[in-house]
């Protein structure tokens, strides 16, 4: 028996971020940095993901946005980036990838006040899910809004944990720390 569920199929920006982080891990990145900047003056919400993975083959920075380009032999890309671009453009923004071996940057922007901008969603959930991934790269996260900012570095959290982060760590103190730090800044982009 299947019951209708109340799960809303709302696409969150933080889900796109999780997708990008998974790409970075699959590309063998050792570190990945994420920046979320709420630029009130420009009316933009910007998302920047930068990793040191193997990067895309030359000339593929644009074709990764074509959902039908992907071959089944590489799982590096698929629907993830086309969906990100669609979400950005729907909100009056754009999405681009620049890539070279050892340095891949995905940049997406969204109209901050655009009626079709997806909500940021559960960014803490995204970050903790990522930190639990096997072989997750070192994550640095920076969130800036209205002149304030919050920064997080998974290496410091691991040092405090005395080793790799476990399910118990992230479900408890790491998540609390992130939620408290970001809660102070999360005004308009929830």
């Amino acid at each position, binding site marked *: 028996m299947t019951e209708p*569920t109340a*799960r809303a199929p709302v*696409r969150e920006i933080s*889900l796109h971020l*999780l*997708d990008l982080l*998974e790409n970075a891990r*699959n590309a063998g990145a050792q570190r990945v940095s994420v920046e979320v900047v709420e630029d009130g003056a420009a009316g933009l919400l910007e998302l920047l993901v930068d990793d040191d993975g193997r990067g895309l083959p030359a000339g593929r920075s644009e074709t990764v946005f074509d959902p039908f380009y992907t071959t089944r032999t590489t*799982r590096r890309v*698929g*629907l*993830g980036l086309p*969906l990100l671009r669609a979400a950005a453009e729907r909100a009056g923004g754009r999405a681009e990838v620049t890539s070279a071996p050892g340095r891949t940057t995905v940049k997406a922007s969204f109209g901050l006040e655009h009626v079709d901008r997806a909500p940021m969603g*559960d960014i803490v*959930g*995204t970050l*903790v*899910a990522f930190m*639990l*991934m*096997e072989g997750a790269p070192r994550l640095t996260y920076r969130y800036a809004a209205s002149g*304030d*900012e*919050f*920064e*997080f*570095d998974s290496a*410091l*959290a691991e*040092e*405090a*944990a005395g080793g790799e982060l*476990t*399910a*118990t*760590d*992230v*479900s*408890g*103190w790491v998540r*609390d*720390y992130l939620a*408290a*730090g970001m809660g*102070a*800044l999360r005004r308009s982009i929830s």
Partner: protein
Amino acid sequence: MPKIGSIEELRALKERAQKDMKVRLGSGTRITVGLGTCGIAAGARETMRAVVDELARREMDATVNTVGCIGMCFNEPLVDIEQAGSPRITYGNVTADRVPRIIEEHLVGGKVIEEWVVGRLDTGGN
């Protein structure tokens, strides 16, 4: 400004929040959640969260990690449970609300929930 002030600050947070693990599942217990684009779209992040929360609530610890798309997108969210000496079981359509039952019956009770199984791999350990 809320930046990480120091390692000490994080350690203190950890001390305050951490409980001693009263139950450690048999070594080699591993829970894997599919977090490819398909899994994410189907709610796998929330499934992952439910797994982590349910383990913490029961004061159990297990290795929890994630994997990308394995080609069974139609059954996402997928959750794999591997335990030493048992076949590897893959559950399909594991929305967050199904997680407590899997942990209760499979991990604690040792009983596979057959109607949710979509794959089984005999690892030769039985």
